[in-house]
């Protein structure tokens, strides 16, 4: 059973549906104490980084304990950003600090004065992935495959980055270290490529 963590950041219907389509069963734990029986944990999320404040110390400890025990964790969208140290979107809201770095606004003015007209933010739509190293999560996904993004903030590219996307600047599209993985795009909305990535993750459960 996969624990789908609901902290009030948008709707979980699509993620649940996609997991069911690949044969995985899910439930939404009502309290952090229920996480103990999860074979895998997903932290989804659309919307504002500030909503991750609902993941209280109790939830953070429970998630950390499970990760330390080797249970696979997958962050999606804001769920990826939360695994970093924090975000410009909500200064003071601390991430889980699994990955180094802080998330930045894609719409921030370019430091390059010769840069072309500012890009539209949020970054909405299908964009291509640069698969920069091998990972379990991105196994079998071709370089240049397109996936669906919708976000205004993004995580920097780090050593653990498993796929890079570029929108004005390069950012982390997928990241993986040990049993912790995350994607900035929405695999549940990315057609066959997205289902493939979810299967790759669920395969390790």
């Amino acid at each position: 059973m996969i624990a789908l963590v609901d902290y009030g950041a948008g709707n979980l219907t699509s993620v649940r549906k996609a997991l069911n389509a690949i044969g995985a069963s899910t439930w939404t734990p009502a309290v952090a104490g229920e996480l103990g029986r999860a074979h895998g944990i997903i932290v989804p999320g659309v919307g504002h980084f500030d909503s991750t404040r609902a993941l209280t110390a109790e939830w953070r400890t429970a998630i950390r304990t499970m990760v330390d025990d080797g249970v696979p964790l997958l962050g999606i969208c804001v769920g990826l950003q939360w695994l970093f140290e924090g975000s410009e979107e909500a200064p003071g809201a601390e991430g889980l600090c699994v990955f180094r770095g802080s998330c930045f606004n894609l719409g921030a003015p370019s430091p390059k004065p010769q840069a072309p007209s500012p890009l539209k933010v949020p970054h909405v739509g299908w964009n291509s992935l640069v698969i920069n190293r091998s990972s379990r999560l991105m196994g079998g996904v071709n370089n240049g495959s397109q996936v669906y993004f919708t976000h205004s903030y993004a995580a920097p590219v780090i050593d653990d980055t498993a796929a890079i996307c570029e929108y004005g600047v390069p950012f982390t599209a997928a990241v993986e270290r040990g049993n912790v993985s995350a994607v900035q795009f929405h695999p549940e909305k990315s057609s066959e490529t997205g289902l493939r990535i979810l299967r790759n993750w669920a395969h390790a459960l």
Partner: protein
Amino acid sequence: MLSKRIIACLDVRDGKVVKGVNFEGLRDAGDPAALARRYNVEGIDEVVILDVTATIESRQARAHTIAAVAAEIFLPLTVGGGIRTEEDAAAAIEAGADKVSLNTAALSNPDLITTLAKRYGSQAVIVAIDAKHVEAGLQSRLRYEVFARSGQSIANRDAVEWAREATDRGAGEILLTSIDRDGTKAGFDCAMTAAVSDAVNIPVIASGGAGTFEHFAEVFGAGHADAALAASIFHFNERSVRELKDFLAERGVPVRK
């Protein structure tokens, strides 16, 4: 590179697609889920369900249609038509919609944009603007007049100014339909689309007038559109979404293939 999106619109009434459909190989051509499945195979980037009946009584029927379409495709799904209240939006999202499209309700109650953006995030809120060219004032200044209630009533708003306000209130995308061009197959209104697209910093979806593949190339070029929506060109045309994307790619338009 971010692709230009091709969006199929399903106009649904009482659970059936009402604009004519003549795809071969569909047992029930009016079935929204069957059509969505076909589009998905062909490489459509997004699907919009526009429920043209949408009354309070039909909310349950609408939820059924949304769930049936959402069960077939793993693509972004937008629902519009008769989303008047926060409850309407919540029901559509719970049934499987990723985004709701507000039109008349956003004009009469702009706070609804902000309420929904706070609850679900801006990415879940599309403001649909139906507008047409008018010449206003003594200088015959060109104005894009906004209409509410499916083009029935004048809203006394300019499309560019309303798009800016909707953005400030939390809309994540603008769906801009040209009333002049809708159903004509004469091409998108590129001038209006560019005027709105250049005025806001959120994606603009162009709608109304798609008749040929060239029209899509025009609206992504001169029209500065981020996405293009069409219904009948895909329903009637034997040429598929895939052929359209091949056509656009040959002309240097970035598309998902």
